[in-house]
């Protein structure tokens, strides 16, 4: 039987007048990579902090790996915050030792050496944090979140500041952790990253859950209504295609937005009559598009912006 790593039942949290999270129900199954998506101030960080036991909910219940909310931090949770939190004057090794010991891993030196090696940081042990580049510091921060071998790992924007090579290195490491049974909460503003990394996605807006489910189930709920079309060079799309709301040129392709999925066939018929079609694809709705539908353009714009701090 599958057990949930995290369960939030009817959770509400307010700060003075502001309702940060309202009547939230959430089940994160063990071994999943669960995406947390939402714009700045939507309640995402508050939810994470409640799971981390930094905040206590006003009402409702937060259960992490079977145990109820207590006063003490849970050593089985690893956390990589969006903004890096490392002591600049300490060496890489001493910072990692400190974070490991705080989580109860007192024999952490082999793990530190092993992880530094895996992420290309062999020989960094005695470097001061302040001498590291942004990408190097990001990797050290990542190691600090997993050094105590957590069962639940919360990653907030883990890929920010990484070049493609290091991003791939970290992505592989995260997927390997999942294979080994770690449950991962993956909070991001980048919808493409969320689509590539997560099995299940949870979207929050103004403290309310607006989406929750596997990518397949979410996308199947929202019918495909966009076409990706390429016609032969020098030819144009006909101007009066039925049911078309807008046409957007993206490189050699045209993205055609339809009134409804029912218009697909009629558009294709008209297209083949008037020009030579080289590519015709019905696009599954992207997370970004689904979010635009749910939250409106303004919120969608906010979500694609990098966010520095969240109350």
């Amino acid at each position, binding site marked *: 039987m599958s057990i949930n790593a995290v369960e939030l039942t009817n959770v509400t949290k307010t*700060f*003075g007048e502001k309702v940060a999270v309202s009547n939230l129900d959430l089940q994160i199954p063990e071994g999943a990579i669960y995406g947390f998506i939402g714009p700045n101030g939507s309640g995402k960080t508050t939810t994470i*902090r409640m799971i*981390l*036991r*930094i*905040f*206590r909910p006003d009402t409702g219940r937060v259960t992490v790996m079977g145990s109820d909310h207590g*006063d*003490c*931090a849970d*050593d089985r*949770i690893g*956390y990589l*915050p969006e*903004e*890096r*939190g*490392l*002591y*600049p*004057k300490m060496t890489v090794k001493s910072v990692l030792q*400190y*974070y490991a*010991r*705080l*989580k*109860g891993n007192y024999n952490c030196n082999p793990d530190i050496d092993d992880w530094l090696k895996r992420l290309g940081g062999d020989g960094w042990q005695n470097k001061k944090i302040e001498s590291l580049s942004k990408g190097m510091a990001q990797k050290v921060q990542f190691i*600090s979140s997993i050094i105590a071998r957590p069962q639940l790992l919360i990653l907030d924007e883990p890929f920010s500041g990484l070049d493609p090579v290091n991003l791939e290195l970290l992505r592989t490491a995260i997927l390997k952790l999942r294979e080994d049974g770690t449950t991962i909460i993956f909070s991001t503003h980048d919808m493409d990253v969320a689509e590539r990394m997560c099995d299940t996605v949870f979207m929050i807006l103004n403290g309310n859950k607006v989406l929750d489910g596997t990518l397949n189930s979410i996308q199947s709920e929202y019918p495909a209504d966009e076409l990706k079309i390429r016609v032969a060079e020098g030819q144009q799309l006909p101007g009066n295609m039925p049911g078309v709301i807008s046409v957007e040129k993206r490189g050699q392709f045209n993205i055609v937005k339809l009134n409804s999925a029912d218009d697909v066939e009629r558009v294709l018929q008209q297209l083949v009559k008037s020009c030579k079609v080289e590519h015709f694809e019905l696009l599954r709705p992207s997370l970004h598009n689904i979010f635009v539908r749910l939250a409106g353009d303004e919120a969608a714009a906010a979500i694609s912006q990098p966010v520095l*701090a969240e*109350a």
Partner: protein
Amino acid sequence: MKKILTIARREYQAMVATKAFVIGLAMMPVLMLGGMYVPGLLKGMQSSEERKIAVVDFSGQLFAPLSAAAGMKNAMTQAAIDRDANGEETEAASEEEKDRKAKQSLGLDDINTYVLELVLPAEFNDEKRLELSDRIRKGDIHGFVEIPADILESKPVDLKSLDMTKVDAKELIGLPDVIYCSQDSAISDVKSWLQGTLTQLVRAERLKASGVDEMILLELERRANVQATGLYEKADDGTVIPERKPDELTSIFLPMGIMMLMFMIVMMSAQPMLESVLEEKSLRISEVLLGSANARQLMIGKLIGNVCGSLTVFGLYAGGALAVASAQGYLDIIPLHVIPFFIIYQVLAVLLFSSIFMAIGASVSQLREAQSLLLPVWMVMMFPLMVWIMVVREPNGTLATTLSFFPPSTPLMMTLRLATGAIIPVWQIVCSILLLVFGTFVGITAASRIYRVAILYQGKTPKFSDMLSWIIKDPAG
């Protein structure tokens, strides 16, 4: 508990194993002692000057003895300068030499030589005054003195007719004004030399005129010296001897020094706490920490590390001071009985002030924002420093006793009182400790409530009212 100790260990290392700490440790006593030795060092930079002084002697009898006195003074000054230059250790035999040494250590001794120039009184008028003033401006002469004609006359004063409460000394003595004109400041060395020398000369002349033997007068005027001693006690060999009494300076400044040590240690401990919390907040380290330990564990861990750091500072300073005192033979004037109380008050003071500084560090986002919040804390903490002299004079007075029971003042005040060597009633010591323990408990509780909310609070600096509301109702909970 292991988490708290892990946090305490890191905090201790962060406090003690830094260059800033080592430099601070070395600099503090240097700065304090510097105040005592700098004038003496500056003295080496002073050079002896020849000062030309024009003398208008209307009495007609004083220029020659005054010139002779200047010649003697010059010879003595030169001899003293030569001795200092050769590094000769002179036995401070005479009172004059003692006085000179004391003044020299403060950089106040007179190392100039004087050359006197006679100006005939017959030609002297306002024109001449202007002319001499011009010569002073040009630097040709240093100043000029007008000695009045009647300076040697005694002017008997009818004491009975005077209202003694209103009369001033000059009127009583009836001394005519000698005028000394120069560009010097009020504490001119020439003026004080003239004052002393002329008084002696005039006195000798008057005595001679009235036929009184100066030696008899000196004998009659001999002062009754009062010497202070400590309490009598029986020595090992059975003799009854007075306890060595520290001199006046020691009995005033030693307690102050001990109180300053407490102040320095508390500051050296509390200020880094503010900076440490501020760093953790601004670099978002606190968010990672709060994912590993709760605010209470963090705060207690930090405070334990901080107290250990402060005890290290005390150990080093006190050990150093005792070693120096022992080597110099002053160990018996150090009030060793203060040490255990010092440690108790220090631990409580560090806990109290460090927790307040932590709460402030957590509430602001930049160090300069902390200043306005720190001001009232500073004021309360430094109050004993403003009234220390009154407390040293009356260690069991009302002011001292009252402030001893006001927890933020207790550590400095009680240390000061105990260090004076006065007998402080036991109940006062016990009560002050109990009240301080209570005050520290209240302080830590309030500070921890502010800390746990403020550490995650971004944006504008909270007002006192916000902080008060966090103490009363905790929104993070």
